[in-house]
């Protein structure tokens, strides 16, 4: 129907375009592959807007080495297979950089495909910029020269979180509750290991795994937590699994501390409500009250994209885009291999402190904050009266964890 005509039209224009290629302005083509429809789309859409916002900023400031960035979005429909198809489309369309983050499963698929593509098609290499997939193997056993991660991984976040636990003398018994898949299991393993190192006196009274996004009623789990006498729960749960868990805890009158990864996520503060004040903590690279005044970029973003579902959440995307621009400038080229070479080892100073992209495993080191829910905040979240205030900050260098990566570099 009209879609075919449009395709034909675009193809025709492309044909005309290639004729004038010599005189036309070259572009750096970057692809954004995320879930843009279906149940998991809210994170994908928000991160898409965030990336687009910073791409526009870079272009407004002159682009990358004089070339403008063209960002194209591809919907992965929350499916690893569709991700691969989308990636194929993206590569065929000439994109040399791929952004993705929400969903480690898809990150693995993309990494695998990118590695194979770069090996089989020299000259058409693609670099994968990962802003949210935090499974540790991506910068350990499965590390790759073509992959850069801009979000602190599970182990790094757990290191910061356990620092907070270490400092809290009241906590004597900890309960671990996580989702039963690789991410949840790595959270639990990291928690067990690090608690043993930092506070051997703390007893881990439970290590529970719940099937992913299947549990509706967490009250039996809360009953178990209470029965164990735990005064703190460490959980990597996200989405419904976190909201329902904390809600059940609130209903049952559990008054221990919740150490979480994603309590600041979309929809979480309104669902948790006042009951979370002083009790719910999170580890993140940013929250709205981390600096007294809102960063001007964030203020500009929220002006352009008003509405609760567009509340800024991905500080690390700002860091990612700024570092990427820096690397391109340093490499004096937009070729992926050269930019990747410039990006590894790059240091940069940001509004929250210095950051560094590790050369050995392509993991970004950035400051991490452990924060607690509070109603005494300057910037309340998502239409509520609550936000987070910082408990402690861990500097970028201090967040580093050992790596097993043996990276193979292109010759």
């Amino acid at each position, binding site marked *: 129907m009209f879609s075919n005509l449009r395709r034909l039209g675009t193809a025709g224009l492309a044909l005309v375009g290639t004729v004038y290629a010599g005189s036309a302005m070259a572009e750096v083509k970057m692809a954004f592959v995320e879930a843009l429809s279906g149940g998991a789309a809210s994170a994908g859409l928000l991160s898409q807007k965030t990336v687009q916002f910073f791409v526009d900023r870079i272009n407004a400031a002159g682009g990358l080495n004089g070339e403008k960035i063209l960002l194209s979005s591809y919907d992965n429909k929350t499916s690893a297979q569709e991700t691969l198809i989308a990636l194929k489309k993206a590569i065929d369309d000439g994109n040399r950089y791929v952004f993705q983050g929400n969903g480690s499963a898809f990150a693995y698929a993309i990494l695998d495909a990118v590695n194979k593509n770069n090996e089989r098609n020299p000259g058409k290499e693609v670099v994968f910029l990962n802003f949210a997939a935090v499974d540790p193997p991506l910068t350990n056993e499965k590390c790759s020269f073509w992959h850069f991660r801009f979000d602190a991984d599970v182990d790094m976040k757990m290191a910061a979180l356990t620092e907070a636990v270490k400092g809290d003398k009241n906590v004597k018994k900890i309960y671990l509750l996580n989702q039963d898949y690789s991410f949840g299991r790595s959270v639990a393993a990291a928690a067990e290991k690090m608690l043993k190192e930092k506070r051997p006196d703390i007893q881990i009274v439970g290590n529970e795994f719940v099937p992913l996004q299947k549990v509706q009623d967490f009250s*039996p789990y809360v009953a178990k937590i209470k029965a164990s006498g735990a005064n703190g729960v460490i959980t990597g749960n996200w989405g419904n699994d976190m909201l329902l868990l904390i809600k059940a805890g609130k209903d049952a009158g559990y008054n221990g501390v919740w150490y979480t990864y994603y309590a600041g996520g979309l929809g979480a503060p309104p669902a948790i409500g006042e009951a979370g004040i002083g009790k719910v903590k999170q580890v993140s690279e940013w929250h709205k009250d981390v600096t007294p005044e809102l960063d001007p970029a964030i203020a500009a973003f929220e002006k352009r994209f008003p509405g609760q579902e567009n509340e800024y959440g991905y500080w690390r995307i700002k860091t990612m885009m700024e570092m990427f621009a820096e690397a391109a400038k340093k490499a004096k080229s937009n070729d992926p291999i050269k930019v990747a070479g410039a990006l590894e080892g790059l240091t940069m100073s940001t509004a929250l402190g210095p950051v560094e992209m590790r050369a050995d495993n392509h993991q970004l080191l950035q400051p991490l904050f452990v924060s607690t829910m509070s109603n005494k905040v300057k910037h309340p979240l998502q239409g509520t009266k609550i936000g987070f205030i910082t408990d402690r900050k861990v500097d970028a260098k201090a967040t580093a964890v050992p790596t097993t990566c043996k990276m193979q570099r292109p010759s």
Partner: protein
Amino acid sequence: MIEVFVSSLLNGVVYGLLLFMLSSGLTLIFSMMGVLNIAHAGVFMLGAYITYQIGKYAGFWVALMLAPVLCGLIGAAIERYGLRFVPNRKSHVPEILFTFGLLYLIEELVVMIWGRNPIPATVPEALDFPLFTLFGTSYPAYKAFMMAVSIGMFVSLYVALKRTRIGLVIQAALTHPQMVAALGHNVPSVYVLVFALGSALAGLAGAIGGFTWLTAPTLAFTVGPIVFVIVIVGGLGSLAGALIASMLIGILQTFAVVVDYSLRDLFAALGVTVSPSSPLYELYSIKVAQTAPVIPYLLLVLMLIVRPRGLLGTRDA
């Protein structure tokens, strides 16, 4: 020990009654009409959203009255203007497919109107207090309210079907439609009525389930399958069966969560140690607690193999 037992029992009963509330409407439609109404969960979700929307302007209690009515009307419309035109109703396959497509439509409609993110459906203030505290765990009042509504649903449905005239006509029309039509009753209207009633019950369940669970467009897909399990395990044609099945599943699931043992522990108790290198090690290490949310499906498969009629079923599917 007794603490764990009592609190699990209480939680299990509450959860079971909530499940019954969800499935009572489907019991009516599926049990009686034989229509595998996959869109039932969608109507439930609509009930939750409608309650939230009306509640913003008129308060929760008004919304609680209106949402079931609206959902009933929606159900009637589905039957009258949709299902009736589905061809080849004998084999039920097109009907199932129709309601399946309808579920997707309802979900997209919800996204169009209310967006993708979960909406902050909060517990109404009148119910948001701990009713009593047992062994240090408090039980909020809204759960008691839920239980009351659920039991009320059961009682009123039971009475309506078995004791009133219209209930008898419904029961008769579902097994012998031609005879009932010959006796002068308007059978198509009976069908519409049943569908409307079932959907109204789903709407009522949604009004309450909305603040218990998370009101998001994915709600229909997460609670949908369990509802079918209950209706099948309970047995077709039986309301009491659905109640028993809900309670069974609720209690089993809740008790399963406290059982932290796996097959490996069982083997160890019998003196057999399973080494990590053996091929099924992972399978044996799965704790019962981990499997709790899939217990309904296990029960479904077992029931269908052993006794396809269900617990108290009066007729085969």
